[in-house]
């Protein structure tokens, strides 16, 4: 497990890291995250100074730039409360990637401490708070994309637990779920041919399962897949799992 050594959750005060993608593009996903966390009884602190987890530079190979952004996150998310992100990818940057980039830095311990209290939202709800079912109705066939940065974490099992507990939800399986959608951050623009071909394969498998919508715990994958589908003239409906949970609980 990538995030096995985690600080136990004791209270219900959390800090929200909205992620730069939701800050800039998927505003409703961040809103849904707030409502879902509040429904689970959490009080939310949203540090205004937050920007990004540093992953774009880290994956792009510019670790000097990445460290600056990680240090900014360390300065912004102070205290000991859990930090919750509506993204498996950004969470993995915080609890795994950042430690790699700081191996030889004097402030490694602070970076690791922040990582140990960082959670992807679904993982936090189920494995942090112990939520095992979600209220409401959401009548839809949902294809769940296994975002790659949830490998080795509890996120996918947690997501399936919650989705399957919602009345009306049918999770449909599709081929090659372990394969990447092709986004990969800067990879999507530095390897556009391979990235697009990977997206097409993923879309082919998803369409064959005939879901009503495609859901994920990472909007970056959804941005790539829905952008590709729309470009081809066959748009698909995508949602973050937090939006499904929010819509379900409002439909009791």
């Amino acid at each position, binding site marked *: 497990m990538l995030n096995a050594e985690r600080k136990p959750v004791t209270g219900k005060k959390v800090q929200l890291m909205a992620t730069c993608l939701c*800050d800039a*593009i998927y505003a409703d996903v961040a809103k849904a995250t707030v409502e879902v966390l509040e429904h689970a009884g959490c009080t939310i602190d949203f540090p*205004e100074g937050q920007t990004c987890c540093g992953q774009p530079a880290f994956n*792009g*190979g*510019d670790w000097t730039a990445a460290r*600056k952004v990680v240090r900014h996150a360390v300065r912004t998310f102070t205290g000991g409360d859990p930090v919750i992100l509506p993204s498996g990818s950004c969470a993995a940057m915080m609890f795994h990637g950042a430690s790699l980039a700081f191996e030889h830095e004097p402030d490694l311990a602070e970076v690791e401490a922040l990582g140990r209290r960082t959670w992807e939202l679904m993982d936090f709800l189920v494995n942090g708070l112990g939520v095992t079912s979600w209220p409401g109705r959401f009548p839809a066939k949902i294809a769940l994309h296994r975002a790659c940065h949830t490998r080795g974490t509890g996120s996918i099992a947690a997501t399936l637990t919650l989705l399957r507990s919602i009345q009306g939800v049918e999770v449909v399986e599709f081929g090659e779920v372990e*394969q990447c959608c092709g986004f990969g951050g800067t990879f999507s*623009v530095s390897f556009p041919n391979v990235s697009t071909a*990977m997206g097409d394969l993923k879309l082919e498998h998803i369409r064959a399962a005939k879901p009503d919508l495609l859901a994920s715990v990472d909007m970056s994958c959804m941005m790539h897949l829905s952008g590709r589908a729309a470009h081809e003239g066959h748009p698909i409906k995508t949602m973050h799992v937090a939006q499904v949970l929010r819509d379900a609980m409002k439909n009791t």
Partner: protein
Amino acid sequence: MAKQLIDQFAAALPADKRASVYQSTKSTHEKRTKMLFDQFAEPNRLRSLAGGIKQHVLEHLDTLLPEVEAKLQANGAKVHWAATAEAACAAVLGIMQARGATKMVKAKTMVSEEIELAHFLEKHGIEALETDLGEFIVQIDHDHPSHIVRPIIHKNRREIATSFEKHGLGAYNDDPQTITRRAREFLRQKYLQADVGLTGANFVSVESGRLVLVTNEGNSRFSLAAPKVHIALVGIEKLVPRDRDLGLLLNLLARSATAQQLTVYTEFISGPKSATQPDGPEEMHVIFVDNGRSEVLASECREILRCIRCGACMNVCPVYRQASGHAYRTVYPGPVGAVLSPLLAGKKFPELADLPKASSLCGACNEVCPVDIPIPDLLLRLRDKGKREGAPLAAAGTPPMGAWALLATQPTAWKAALFGGKIINYLPTKLLPIPPLRAWEDTRDLPEWKGGEFRKWMKGRGKS
């Protein structure tokens, strides 16, 4: 924006080649996974245990290598040390010349590809014939392997039939059984004529000095049946501490490589022919090859030397499946190659600095690796190395991050950019000459910019 070589190679790859690479890798990967999870309760714990054994070897090579040397010598083998590819080739040539040998049959060994042994020997008037069917086809075609386990994964049987006809191995016939029979007939004669049989070694046990060889064609056994001399080329990382470690590693190797419980032939070789044995090589030479491995061992990517060459990472890799092995321009393709090849290149690292970028960092390679190598972490470390060393191929195609980092450390500027970014919703983005934007929009639509909307909503809630 400069294009990535591997991405360009993938785009230019003929559709039938891509289809054959994709189908073959997908099918092997799926069989591998089913077999491991059907037959073992906790395959991931086995991978982790195997990784631990190989990591132990790497961390104790300084004492294990002298130990295995003594054991091999006690078993009657001669041990040679080759620091470089040139030294390894020279050692092979020296052994052959000392016996006046001119003909070699070769079993499949990646390290011989790495040091380009066959070309070297040919230049010195020595026939070095590949006996693995795939490698044999690569050799008669003057081609290169494109997969470490299936060297001709990029070829179809029609191409092979054409090559056989051109090489005088019978009239065109693309029936796989006919192709195999013809190769077998040709090779049988060569086994009998050869002076030297050359093999690699999948493992060498320090405890017993046994060399372990796995094949499915039996060609390594044939290569050691008639020739009087056996030469084994072995990377210095190939050791296992004890014979009993082989139980775990062989079980994982065959399942990971070809979805077999065990390869058809597994040989344990503990020395040359003894006085009481009627047949077998009279001389056995083991050449331990470094060729850059010590430097890899000293680097922060040493885990890559755990690799047991099963090819599972390339089978599952979405980039390998799209681009094929030749896209990587080196002997070791795919995820393991994207780490190992630039490192083994030493001073020529900048020439391969783009390889670590040929990954979406999806982590599938680590998930299937029988020795649990954290390949994505190593790819990332090499990206950092490429950037620090200013390798132009490392920078090619990647948007610069300095300005972004500056923005991401100043909240006021960040918030202004969030609101200001909305302009992108009104701009004719398809006309803007911004390379990353072009690369995105050529195949994908842009989402609508909603910068700052969430922050506004969050603040509004606080007031109510």
